[in-house]
């Protein structure tokens, strides 16, 4: 479970987060929806303890990230934007490295890496250096890294960017499977279809604030629109920053 309460964060002169509060429950997929520059990445980085909030707090499984960062981070898997690959390592080496960093023993990490490579159908690229990978192959590697240690909470920053149809479907199935297993999945996106298709709970963000939240269904009803996209536009008051 990820809980964010009254987060405030100023970066330079921009108020990136402005009293942001929301909750992502276990066994649910929560979507953080907002136009470009709404503060989605800043919010996720704060949850990871990479940025320090000016006020407010973020809790992971009821552990305050600012107070006990080590324990809080053990419950997390991160799929960052940008991916942060090591170009000279192969996906197998890369994933195993992060598995060990997350506290797994070497043997355990090796078998967990093989499992996740198989699950994401990465057998053909597993032992090639990441240099020259396509965007989709990079995304898959980063995703494998995020879930290899089976964290209770998984945070994904724009996970579908650059994925082809097949990979998007794999990702979708994977997120649904994680949900089935009772994980808490939080992802940020600005792609409506994806959010509508996957999320149990949507948090709509604009200018660092929560504008509305609820299930996609509820948001449509609230704004009396037919699609999530129209509801979204009605909620944030413009179509600025909306990408296809």
């Amino acid at each position, binding site marked *: 479970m990820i809980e964010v309460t009254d987060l405030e964060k100023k970066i330079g002169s921009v108020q990136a987060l402005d009293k942001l509060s929301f909750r992502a429950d276990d066994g649910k997929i929560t979507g953080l929806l907002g136009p470009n520059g709404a503060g989605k990445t800043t919010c996720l980085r704060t949850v990871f303890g*990479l940025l320090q909030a000016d006020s407010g707090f973020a809790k992971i499984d009821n552990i305050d990230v600012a107070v006990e960062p080590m324990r809080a981070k053990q419950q997390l898997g991160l799929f960052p934007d940008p991916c*942060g690959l090591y170009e000279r390592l192969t996906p197998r080496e890369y994933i195993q490295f992060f598995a060990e960093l997350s506290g797994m023993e070497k043997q355990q990490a090796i078998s967990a890496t093989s499992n996740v490579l198989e699950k994401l159908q990465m057998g053909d690229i597993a032992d090639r250096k990441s240099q020259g990978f396509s965007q989709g192959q990079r995304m898959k590697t980063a995703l494998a890294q995020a879930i290899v240690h089976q964290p209770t909470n998984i945070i994904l920053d724009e996970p579908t960017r650059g994925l082809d149809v097949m990979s998007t479907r794999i990702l979708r199935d994977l997120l649904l499977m994680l949900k089935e297993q009772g994980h808490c999945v939080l992802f940020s996106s600005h792609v409506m279809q994806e959010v509508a298709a996957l999320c149990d709970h949507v948090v709509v963000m604009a200018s660092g604030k929560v504008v509305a939240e609820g299930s996609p269904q509820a948001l449509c009803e609230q704004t009396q629109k037919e699609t999530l996209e129209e509801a979204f536009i009605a909620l944030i008051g413009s179509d600025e920053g909306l990408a296809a």
Partner: protein
Amino acid sequence: MIKLVQVLYKKEMLDASRDKRSVMAGLYYAIGAPIVMCLLFTILLKQLSSPEALEITVENSDAAPSLVSYLEGFDISHGKEGSAKAITLIIDEDYEQDMSQGRSARVTIVADKSDNKLIKSVRRLEAALARYNSEVAGLRLISRGIDPSIMRAINVQTHDQATPDSKGGMFLGIATLSIIIALFYSAMNLAIDTSAGERERNSLALLLSHPLSSTQIVLAKVAAIASYSMIGLVLVLIVSKFAYGMVPWEQLGFSINLDVMFILFCTLIGIPIALMSASLLVFVSFMAKSFKEAQSYVAFVLFVPIGLSMMTTYDIATDYVQWIPIAAQQYAMIEVIKGNELPLMQVILSSFGTLALFAIFTMLSSRMLKSEKVVFGL
């Protein structure tokens, strides 16, 4: 704690070893520097051991054949216009006559004594003439039945206390500096790549979002960089051993002979320096906001060992400098090569000092990694 550092260290080593070109670029120094030094020393030694022939203009040389041949014995001779230096020795018209009659024969040196480049040659000519003068005067005294030693009221004798080895101070300074620099230079690319580069590739933020402390990350990076520095050091020592073996030291009467003991000694005292230089390089690269900026700063770092070494080589404030990290180790290396007693106290204290600097730089870097400004280059 230690286990995570090991995991990180292994990854750093693997990552670096895959980047063959930049690793090799660093190690080229270790192979190239001793060879260049060897050539340089050979040329320098040749110049030092045989002074150049001095060509001047001698006017009316026919009048003084014995003086001219005496000067030729000191490699001073009449040269053609163009190659001769702007020094003219004029032998007086009456030279021959004065000489045969036992009078004082006049020779005149015409030269610009304010010209620094000439002054040494002028002195050389003057010294040669003075020697000729006293030889001829001695002969005249003997022919008149007087002991020439009567003209020597004081008998000046200089005992040169310089042992052959201590003459080589400058050579030793340069040779040992080139060895110490290897510790800084060999892993410079790696240091930038693993810190500023890691941030630019966005993997630093990902690393920090895992349950590990920034100190662990910095320690692993420093250890990996120091490992490559040590490879550079061992390489430079081995290449130096063979390269310096080929320099014709006997021309000057001393030799730089790097034996196995010296190589082991350098490797041992090199470990703290490698850790210190690695932590300094990481610190400096994290301070920079970009890869390019880091490259400029890291180049400045090289001035630290060069400056300290200059002070050791040219004996500036040696009493104090010999206790300072790097300078002390270099001083000890020079003493070991000379075969003098090892300044144990200095080596131990400065090695601890070096390790303390390593601890400080590591702490500063890991503190920087806690700042979001540094991590995201804001």
